[in-house]
């Protein structure tokens, strides 16, 4: 990182003197002041490109137009990078089941929709939760999945759109069907 950020104030005049002399020495690299001018412009460039997507923190783009990658490609890759970064962090929530001796933890980001999540939970806890219906909830099933949302309320899994669920779910609890009846009738 240090190489590019050399704040040497001498203009390129120095570079034309045979000061760059012995190739390969650290000094010659750090003194290569042709990088300097570009640094002045680089902050402007960062500002202009930092409107829509959250750009990486300042020091990353050191020189204008370098490496020589077209703006279109740069933008596309930055967006993909953001996506994959957030995928990497995951969304682990605790899952408890009534009667089970210990809790489990799952990454809800791994699942794309409710059916996937329910199948995974059923497999993990060897229980059956059946099919969700808006009116009846999981009525008739042995167990029903519930979750605690951002406000601390206990909600029935399946009521809100999946994306909303993923961002608001704090923890999961697989309730006994008989207890869950109350929730389903809201």
């Amino acid at each position: 990182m240090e190489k590019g950020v050399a704040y040497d104030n001498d203009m390129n005049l120095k570079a034309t003197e045979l000061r760059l002399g012995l190739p390969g020495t650290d000094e010659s690299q750090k003194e290569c002041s042709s990088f300097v001018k570009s640094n002045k412009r680089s902050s402007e460039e960062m500002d202009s490109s930092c409107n829509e997507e959250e750009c990486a923190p300042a020091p990353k783009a050191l020189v204008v137009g370098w490496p020589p990658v077209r703006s279109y490609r740069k933008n596309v890759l930055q967006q993909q990078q953001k996506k994959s970064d957030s995928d990497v962090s995951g969304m682990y929530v605790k899952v408890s089941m009534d009667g089970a001796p210990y809790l489990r933890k799952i990454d809800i980001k791994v699942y794309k929709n409710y059916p996937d999540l329910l199948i995974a939970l059923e497999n993990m806890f060897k229980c059956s939760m059946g099919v969700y219906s808006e009116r009846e909830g999981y009525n008739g099933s042995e167990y029903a999945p519930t979750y605690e949302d951002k406000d601390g309320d206990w909600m029935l899994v399946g009521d809100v759109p999946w994306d909303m669920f993923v961002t608001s779910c704090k923890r999961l609890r697989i309730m006994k069907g008989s207890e869950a009846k109350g929730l389903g009738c809201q």
Partner: protein
Amino acid sequence: MDPKLKKTKDSSSNSANSPDSTHSSFLFPDEVLERVLSLLHSHKDRSSVSLVCKDWYNAERWTRTKLFIGNCYSVSPEIVARRFPRIKSVTLKGKPRFSDFNLVPQYWGADVHSWLVMFAKVYPFLEELRLKRMTLSDESLKFLATSFPGFKALSLLSCDGFSTDGLKAIATHCKNLTELDIQENGIDDFGGGWLSCFSENCSSLEVLNFASLSSDVSFDALEKLVRRCKSLRILKVNKSISLDQLQQLLVQAPQLIELGTGSFQQELTPRQYEDLETAFSNCKNLQTLSGLWEATSLHLPVLYAACASLTFLNLSYATLRSDELAKLVAHSPNLRRLWVLDTVEDKGLETVGSSCPLLEELRVYPADPFELDLHHGVTEAGFLAVSHGCRKLHYVLYFCRQMTNAAVATIVQNCPDFTHFRLCIMNPGEPDYLTNEPMDEAFGAVVKTCTNLQRLAVSGLLTDLTFEYIGRYAKNLETLSVAFAGSSDRGMQCVLQGCPKLRKLEIRDSPFGNAALLSGVEKYETMRSLWMSACNVTMSACRLLAKDMPRLNVEVMRDEGSDDRQADKVYVYRSVAGPRRDAPPFVLTL
């Protein structure tokens, strides 16, 4: 030279001297000459032909239907209109290449409008327009769409200034459109409604590429369009098209030769997965595959059936790992061209070396260009591995963070036929990481061994020695890109004096000054253009150059807050049209 041609030249020049001008037509009537010349397509050949004599110049200009203008400012619309009466296809290139990397300010120029106005007057039967690095507005697009009833093909690469509204005009008015190719432009995307502007009668499309647009298009409109256009051979959709939608499109167009997929990530039922696999295996003519955004090992296998016929695989927007790439290339033994991201790492490139013996072109782009961590991306090992297995390699673009002189020397020994060698070691001034020496010997090896080298891009820590080598050995070099390299004027001088075929020289952030600039005074008229930015050139030298060479346009752009005497950005190009009349205030024409 063809003896027949020579003979005719002599007889023509004889007739020029003698008052009997029927002499040449007796030997070689104009009609025959024109018939023969109309078979010539290469613009370089046509240029040579036009220089033979007056008769040939005339015959050539009457038979030329395709115009190629590499620098829109080297000539004017009026001059072109006077010389060529029968043009059907135009290719125009505008801004200097470094504008792709934000080195040229906005509103610099290269506006196509004045050209379109001339075309409308002189070439009402214009069919094709291909623009690269030009500026065009929505008004220009509307003008284009409504001024040429027979207009067929529009290709825009790296252009700016327009929006999807302009595309609406094209889709609406060009009833005979065969090609709409929109690539990597600075475009304002106001939505995908333009696609729905194609009339229900439009069935002539052969090429449709909107991969770089981001908005959703109406899938219904797209599907119907694809179904109607039986001659569609190139279809490149954008990210908004999902996998199951892609399957429906492929079912309508199994004849495709080039396909750009949309997003390659979607929750699919087993049935959908199977259908997609089948759809791909039914595309028996597929040669090119691109897109594949967000592709993962989950869905890549659907492609395997189609990979056998592939010659070009563009994975440069797919962040694939080495194992994912390995499986893909294992199914693609006929690959000639491969573009990847450096997420595949050296391991991935090793599999390329072992799976693709016919490979001719490799491009490795950086997934995270500004990441300085050495543990990502590719190194010299990957490049070496490819060179061992792919002896026919002649085009490479390689972004890496470390390289050695020894590796490059071995690479060119393995592959001596390089015509395009573009190596980008991403940290400016980076030496050979093993020996800590400059990378001079690497590029020396390239120019000594690869005698057919046409295009070279250098990087890493380089002294004048690199340029001495280039001047001494690179006798076929036409394009040279230099950044953060060289020690003194001598470097640039060596290149200018030593490379007879040099056409384009672009230099940034290198210690070349006035002496270097002025040493090329005689040379620049034989070249298309010279670009020098953040070098050591001053205004006085630029003025001197401009004064001595009236047929060169010498343009300077100054950076904010820099010394009055410094010529921060210099762009020199030959022109028969004189100085630009549309230069914005920040471009000083000397």
